[in-house]
């Protein structure tokens, strides 16, 4: 479970995140939507322990991230938007290194690595250097690493970027399976179809504040217009009038 309360992040005078609260329950896939620069990635980075909140609390599976960061991180998986990994390690070496960081024993770790590489269709690349991987393959390798230690909560930033349709379907399937096993997932995405298809609940963030939260149907109802597609609702809630201007400019 992921619970954040009154989370604030200031960069100088600029409030990137301005007092947001949300909960992601076990087995729930929670979509985190918002326009560019709304504060999605900053929030996810704070939950992952990459950025320190200016105020507020983050609790991961009962562990306060500020008070007990190691325990909180031990039960959390993180998939960043850009898959930067050690280019001079092979996929197998990278996963072995990553697993050891989470205290996995060598024997079971080997088996788990084989399982994960097979699951994400990277088994035949196990002994190849990461530097020869495509963006999509690196993204899948990062996902292997995130699931390696069987986290009970997962923070995912733009999971579908760079994935081909087959890879995207694979990832959706894995996420659904993990959700069925009780993993709490907070996922930011710009692909509203993905959010509509996969998420149990959705929060929309704009200018650092959550402006709407609920199930997909509840969000549709909040849009208030006749068009019930999530894209139309999202644009109405976040100021999509600009689209008309684009049309005129073109």
């Amino acid at each position, binding site marked *: 479970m992921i619970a954040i309360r009154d989370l604030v992040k200031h960069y100088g005078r600029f409030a990137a995140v301005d007092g947001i609260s949300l909960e992601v329950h076990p087995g729930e896939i929670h979509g985190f939507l918002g326009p560019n620069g709304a504060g999605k990635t900053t929030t996810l980075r704070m939950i992952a322990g990459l*950025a320190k909140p200016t105020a507020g609390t983050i609790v991961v599976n009962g562990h306060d991230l500020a008070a007990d960061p*190691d325990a909180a991180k031990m039960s959390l998986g993180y998939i960043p938007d850009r898959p930067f990994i050690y280019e001079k390690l092979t996929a197998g070496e990278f996963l072995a290194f*990553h697993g*050891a*960081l989470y205290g996995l024993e060598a024997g079971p770790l080997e088996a788990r690595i084989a399982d994960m590489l097979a699951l994400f269709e990277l088994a035949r690349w196990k002994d190849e250097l990461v*530097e*020869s991987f495509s963006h999509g393959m690196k993204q899948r390798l990062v996902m292997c690493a995130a699931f390696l230690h069987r986290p009970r909560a997962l923070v995912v930033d733009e999971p579908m970027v760079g994935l081909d349709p087959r890879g995207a379907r694979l990832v959706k399937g894995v996420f659904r399976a993990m959700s069925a096993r009780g993993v709490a997932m907070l996922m930011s995405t710009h692909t509203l179809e993905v959010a509509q298809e996969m998420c149990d609940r959705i929060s929309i963030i704009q200018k650092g504040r959550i402006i709407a939260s609920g199930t997909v149907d509840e969000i549709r109802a909040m849009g208030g217009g006749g068009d019930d597609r999530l894209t139309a609702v999202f644009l109405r809630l976040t100021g999509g009038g600009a689209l008309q201007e684009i049309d005129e400019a073109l």
Partner: protein
Amino acid sequence: MTVRPFPHLLLPDLLGARNRARRGERGDLRRALLFGGIGLTVGLALYEGSYWVTGHLLDYAELGDYLLRLGLSWLFLTFLSFLAFSGIVTALSTFFLADDLRLLMAAPIAARRLFHARFARTLLQASWMVVIFLAPVLAGIGRARCAPAAFYGAALLTIVPFSMIPVAAGTAATLLLVNTCPARRARDILVLMGLLFAASLVILLRMIRPEQLLRVESLPDLTSFFASLQSPITPLLPSFWAGETLFAALAGRPDWVHAAALWSTALAAIVVLSAASARWHFAGYSRSQDAPRARFTRLAAVAPLARLLPIAPVRRQLLIKDLKIFLRDVSQWSQLLLLLALVLLYLYNFSVLDLQRIPYMSGFLKNLYALVNLGLAGLVMATLCVRFVFPAVSAEGAAFWIIRTSPIGLGDFLWSKFWTGFAPVFALTEALTLAANRFLGVDPVLEAATSLAVALLSVALVGLATGMGARYPRFGGDPGQVAGSYGGVAFMIQAVLLVIVMMALTGWPASVYLLRQIRRAAAPPPVWPLAALCAAAAIALSLWVWLASMRSGVRALERLAD
């Protein structure tokens, strides 16, 4: 449609530099003062040095002229090889690997315009250091010889074509190489070749044995010594033309023949290279985009060997990861070749020291050299630390999120970096010191004292480098560039100060001990209490530098989340 001339393509670099200069950041003034101060000091030293040498050569009339001419030719010959190599490496980046090429190659830019813009960038990047070095040297020579104002104009008009020729040759070599093997592989080959070249150059210069000039009995050999100096200077090389042009300009005579040779060769090189680039650049660029399966060494022995070490599993994995990444990156480990050459020279120099020439002083001198050896070992250690230990945190690069999101403390991470750096630095410098002391036949007490001092220095300098590397990380930078950053220079200054203090703390009791040995009588102050006091001070200082640096490094890493 208006086609803008090629300098338009340099605008992003110029605007980027202007914006960086405009955007004030904390510590900018400190950095400017530090680097400006160092640059100014080096520039002044070069100016004064060349002025002093040229002034003294004036006393030797024709021989002085000959030596100055020889010196100018050697100076330009050295820069010629440096510029050619620098041109190869820079061209690889500017013509084939730079990120902005994706934008430029997709834009409707004529091949020649792109070539001219890229060559101008290559020329500036490859030659700025040479120009900065040459300017004070030539100014010093000009002042000593009371050269007319035309000399300085001639210097400018000589340096420009002189730089263009080797950089064009280097670019041509890169064009050829990239068209025969993939650019990323070519980079590894070039780096390796360059370092082997540098290592052999260092050894070659040592083999000329300049110390023979100091021996009276070797005077008849002076002519053969100068002949060996003269041999690489050929009238067919641009370095000779540059030297001759400037030597003539010193006397106020224009040397049109050599100046014309320089300019015509430079312009011809650009015309030919431009045509070659129009023909082969795109093919090479296209090859450089191929991503074949990377070839690499498996390094299967690393993990089993690491398992023998009595360390925690997480630290062991960090060690294995660091070692594999280091050993698979040619640009990293190949620098060890140069280091190996320097170490061999270091030991060779001690083995050929002829202390018996001053029999009554040889006992004292060899022990004095033990202290010099300590200082040199300290400097070797500082160099090793700034190049390999200081960039250790930065080397995590964009993948540092993996460590920061994992359940290991940043303290554990930094301490792992410390131990990974400490073991090889300590082993190498301690072995160097012991071997050099054995060559000298140093007093056993002094040998033990310098060994202890090296051990303490290793702890302190590796700790200082690790801690400062965490305080001034550059996650996007090349490790070589990280070493030359503000933090790297600040580390070197502190490291040199620490080495001097440690030399003083070892040298003071050692000199008292040695004087007593020579006089064979007790001399105030008493040796052993003084030695104990100095040893305690050295231990306390080393431990303080070590632990305080590591603590501040861990705190700095924790602050990254802010």
